């Protein structure tokens, strides 16, 4: 026994390539996805750090420069709105809100969706039937209308927004996680683990969850832009954050009111919003190609 132990240590062990490493390589080869990832990174840094370096704050009124176009001389890179507020700073602030709502609502949906889906999928049977029936019913609801009502009646509240959005969007996540769990449960490696006497909790932790992560990662990337879109939709209707705070949807709304006289007010926030959504979608697509077990 001792001899063989030494033999094992003496031998060089070959390093393995996990599926994550493989997926990472595939993703890196996908140029659109890589660029999108980098742009998202830059965008995130910009909206967090950018405002600190700007001479203007988001609610400062520059009386001498009302509704002026983008220019370097005045220091208003993106111009100002009718109230003389700097659009550059406002766009970055709007981005903070949009990204934050996107991330936190996705997180809410992730928590609810994964636990709900995994429970329904793993335990199956009547519980699964009941839980999925509930999801089916909720699916048929015109949710956007409910969210609008919520906003109108309970006031515009950032916290409420992302709870409401997260509560809608978890449905998809739950369905996907459930489907995946269901198919994993019957895979032979899970049966093998059970046959070895590995306990239920350990089976879920070691065998089910790690194999769910790929799909979940893809789905998270695709959920974020969806939430950002919904939030900006609400803001556009005037139901999102309150003045003087702003978000991309609200800026687009303001811009579209003034588009004939000051088109830059529409263009800058619109480009930021579209570009972010674009990059998230591309990244999600690339991740799907890299991680989805179906394509293997």
């Amino acid at each position, binding site marked *: *026994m001792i001899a*063989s*132990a030494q*033999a*094992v240590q003496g*031998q*060089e*062990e*070959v*390093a*393995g*390539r*996990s*599926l*994550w490493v*493989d997926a990472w390589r595939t993703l890196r080869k996908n140029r659109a996805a890589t660029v999108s990832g980098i742009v998202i990174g830059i965008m995130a840094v910009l909206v967090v750090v950018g405002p600190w370096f700007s001479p203007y704050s988001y609610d400062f009124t520059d009386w001498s420069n009302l509704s002026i176009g983008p220019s370097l001389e005045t220091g208003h890179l993106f111009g100002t709105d009718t109230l003389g507020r700097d659009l550059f700073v406002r766009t970055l602030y709007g981005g903070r809100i949009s990204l934050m709502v996107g991330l936190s609502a996705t997180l809410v949906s992730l928590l609810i969706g994964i636990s709900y889906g995994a429970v329904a999928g793993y335990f199956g049977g009547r519980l699964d039937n009941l839980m999925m029936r509930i999801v089916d019913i909720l699916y048929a609801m015109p949710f956007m209308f409910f969210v609008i009502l919520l906003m109108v009646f309970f006031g515009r509240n950032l916290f409420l927004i992302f709870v409401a959005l997260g509560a809608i969007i978890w449905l998809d996540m739950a369905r996907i996680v459930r489907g995946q769990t269901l198919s994993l449960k019957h*895979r*032979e*490696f899970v*049966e*093998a*683990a*059970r*046959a*070895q*006497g*590995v*306990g239920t909790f*350990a089976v879920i932790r*070691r*065998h089910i969850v*790690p*194999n769910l992560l790929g799909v979940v990662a893809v789905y998270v990337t695709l959920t974020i832009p969806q939430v950002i879109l919904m939030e900006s939709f609400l803001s556009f209707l005037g139901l999102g954050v309150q003045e003087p705070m702003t978000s991309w949807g609200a800026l687009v709304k303001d811009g579209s009111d003034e588009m004939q006289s000051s088109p830059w007010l529409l263009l800058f926030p619109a480009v930021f919003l579209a570009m972010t959504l674009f990059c998230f979608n591309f990244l999600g697509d690339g991740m799907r190609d890299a991680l989805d*077990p179906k394509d293997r």
Partner: protein
Amino acid sequence: MSLLEVRNLHVRFDTADGEVHAVRNLSFELDRGETLGVVGESGSGKSQTVLSLIGLLADNGRASGSAMFDGQDLFNLSPGALRSIRGRRISMIFQDPMTSLNPYLTVAEQMVQVVREHDRMTRRAARDRCLEMLEAVKIPDAAERLDCYPHELSGGMRQRVMIAASLLLDPQILVADEPTTALDVTVQAQILELMKDLNRRLGTAIILITHDLGVIAGLCERVIVMHDGELKEQGNVRDVFYRPRHSYTKALLKAVPRLDAEQVERLAPAADSSLLSVDGLKVHFPVRTGGWLGEKRPLRAVDGVNLDLRSGETLGIVGESGCGKSTLARAILRLVPTTAGNVCLLGQSMGDLDKRALREMRRDAQVIFQDPLASLNPRMTVGNIVSEPLRTHFPELGADEVRTRVADVLRRVGLSGRELNRYPHEFSGGQCQRIGIARALVLKPKVIICDEPVSALDVSIQAQIVNLLMDLQAEFGLALIFIAHDLAVVRHISHRIMVMYLGRIMEVASRKALYETPHHPYTRALISAVPIPDPDKERDRDRELLPGDLPSPVDPPSGCRFRTRCRFAQDRCRTEAPQLRQLTDSLVACHRAGEAVLV
């Protein structure tokens, strides 16, 4: 002059990892009305060869060389000209009849359009031609089948439809790519018989691509042996089988388990008390027939099975798909809930155990599955996979101790012991199966249940794995339950064999008794359906062809489960289910077993 003359064929694929040279410098010919077998293991390039001939290679594939068919080079034809040859003069059937027919069109819709594409005729006339062809391939109630969708037909029936569709225009060559691999043995026998008959009656030349030497021996006049994209040997079927020249052919012939091999009785070790016993086991699954408000009915996957197993013994379980053999394996291990009956391991009834005690029991009974890759968690390293049982049952073991034991067991199953940090997808199918065996072995169990452990592997690898299992059994005194649909493999490894049909046991006997004096009509049919890789014997056998397909286990026949396909069935078989009874050396469940007609 030959009908088809292929010279210096090369097939290459451009892939992300560079060029793959799938077929190298292959030359062969085919005469009118001839039956040519192309045999090889997976990756030998046998399918790509024929796909290249009719221009159906995947987009990244290229073929070069020449293929003269009736004075034209197939590789020099315009796409249109090639298309008019496809289907009309060279037609093809594929492995999986399930997916090779369009599920959204009726049989008639798919067949009629083929006729009308190549021949000007009215829809009516085309339909009549299709009907004629369906009758020629012996589909019962052909007129009704015409308007069925594929999913309403059984697997064997679908393959018949495929054959009928490919013969509609009286082609000169029929290419069959593994036409029976997805079918059960008894259905395979029917299809092979049909192809033989069509070749004789219509004079269609057949190119049969298969990995199964037995199928070739029965059907083909000439054989090509391929390996790694190269032709290793070609010749008359008797020459190749009886006087193989190439070492690869020899090795292949030696590796195939044969039903007609020398009968050495494998002696089971001295019978001490039984290690595992199963009593009246039933597993019924509720299935819904029709939508979520449909009626729930039990699918009787396992319906009253008894067995016992002594240590050091191998019990083989054979049966066709749907006979419940895999469910039985899972029920013994308590991976699926049982409906009735009891399983005793080492004198302990598993039904009475609480969770903790059940866990303890699991140390002694392990399992090996069919699909080697699917049975290993893709996100765990080999080290973690094999050590998981140790860490579960002996959490007190130190890391070094675990590593040592894992490396030892990996070496014992024929790996190097250095694979600890690598992931399953980096290994071949055979290696993955070895890892699976290592995982089962690491706890030093008393019983291992092997559920089709070799059916996903190539013949030569199959032999290695089976031999490994037999060695391990001798070394550790393991008891094995070996489940498979391949009778020859089961016969090779087992001491005793149990035959199942629709959830019930038909016959249990020592392997010698079972193969030499099978008593049950089903056993006899099953044995006679297995092709033997020996051209002379294979052609001289008289077969007991079973009619029809397996009935659904949701709605099994009353009385004797086998009666719908049994030619000895009597009234009594309908009303009364036969019990297992002792007959010379066997246990048989048949009312008429032992009667003179059956011998």
